[in-house]
């Protein structure tokens, strides 16, 4: 589960060196935080009923992870080791409060829908995991790259699950009707031909099954990831 601390030692490497690019691309597939490292599932699944919520959740996580990795990395030589974890918690919690306040003030409707799940970014293991495993031992720039990579890895799984669930669960994407009108009495498009939304998709358990299937596909394509039970 936990990774070994990677050290970037080269004193003057270009900003987009191969190593730095790898920091971004790795978490997208072979080291995806959700499907491979199994981190940050808690807050991920509950808000994947609609693409819109998943999008805002991803943006919030991106903000918290980038800012957090940056500040931890800047402070890494100042933080007393004994209260390291508490300091990390304080940094995450404050960033999450900032995100929550901003959402409440500027996109109140979204903030209402995400409800307590914004707060749960604090215990999103991806964030604490990256602070501890990467930002504590690396310079600010690679830390930002690492944060970007991990939050994109998190975001695309989230958006994919949300896309599947919204499309088959309510026949819409971002509220836009894909399969036609579903109002009783005035059906059009596919609904007029007898198509019915799969209400199952909207219910919580299907999020797990969709993620399970994504893992299945991913591991069939990359045999190296297969576990032996």
């Amino acid at each position, binding site marked *: 589960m936990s990774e070994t601390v990677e050290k970037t030692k080269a004193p003057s490497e270009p900003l987009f060196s191969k190593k730095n690019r790898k920091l971004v691309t790795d978490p997208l597939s072979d080291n995806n935080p959700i499907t491979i490292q199994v981190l940050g*599932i808690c807050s991920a699944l509950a808000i994947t009923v609609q693409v819109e919520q998943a999008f805002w959740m991803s943006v919030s996580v991106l903000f918290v992870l980038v800012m957090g990795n940056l500040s931890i990395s800047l402070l890494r030589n100042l933080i007393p080791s004994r209260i390291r974890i508490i300091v990390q918690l304080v940094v995450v919690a404050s960033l999450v*409060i900032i995100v929550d306040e901003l959402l409440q003030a500027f996109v109140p409707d979204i903030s209402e829908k995400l409800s307590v799940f914004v*707060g749960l970014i*604090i*215990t999103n293991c991806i964030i604490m995991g990256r602070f501890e495993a990467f930002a504590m031992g690396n310079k600010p720039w690679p830390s930002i790259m690492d944060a970007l990579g991990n939050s994109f890895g998190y975001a695309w799984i989230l958006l994919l699950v949300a896309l599947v669930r919204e499309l088959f669960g309510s026949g819409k994407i971002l509220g836009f009707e894909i399969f036609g009108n579903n109002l009783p009495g005035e059906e059009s498009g596919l609904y007029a031909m007898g198509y019915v939304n799969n209400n199952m998709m909207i219910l919580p*358990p299907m*999020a797990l099954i969709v993620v*399970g299937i994504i*893992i299945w596909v991913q591991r069939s394509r990359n045999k190296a990831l297969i576990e032996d039970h």
Partner: protein
Amino acid sequence: MDTTLDIFVKAIFSENMIFAYFLGMCSYLAVSKTVKTAVGLGAAVIFVLGITIPMNYLLQNYVLKEGALGWLNPEYGLDGAHTIDLSFLSFIMFIAVIASMVQLVEMLVEKFAPALYGALGIFLPLIAVNCSILGGALFMADRQYSTIADATAFGIGSGIGWFLAIVAIAAIREKIRYSQVPAPLRGLGITFILTGLMGIAFMSFMGIEYKNGDKKAETEQVEAPKTSQNIELNK
């Protein structure tokens, strides 16, 4: 208006932390390979939720909520001249309470109940970052339970629900080793799908209506003005 018992039963079954809200999934997936460790972690979660939810309830209602500081000076209360609203601090305060309580509980258990420490000890530090603990605190604040008894019932109920979920999945995972699971699905993949199927099973608790004295009283009051003629009409 749920009674305390309702809140307790709902928290265990229909509003199960794992199956309805996916809270605490990280440790749920990581520590569910054998039943023995699952029982340990599950018990620790019940324990910590049972302690931190009432603590955070007091914090929420006497410090953080808008006007909650009214007991210090009526001026700070809801109707006072300088209403104080500290609710923006709730995330940071809840997580601080949880982290310090976990630490405290760990020390106390180690000192006074070494046997229990042997069983729970290694799991306690894991719990500070278990989403179900913070999630429980946030749900408690969100749902505005009106008494500390309700909040405690919710805390312990959620813990028991989490315990049930992790022990059940651990038992299944122990057995599934002998099954022919497709190779790419082994381990994580099949656990996700199993949890989903278990979630569907748990959804059958959703339709249960928790009839209770309190609700009855309200309905009776509503129906009181009915005349006998009306009742027949309704039939």
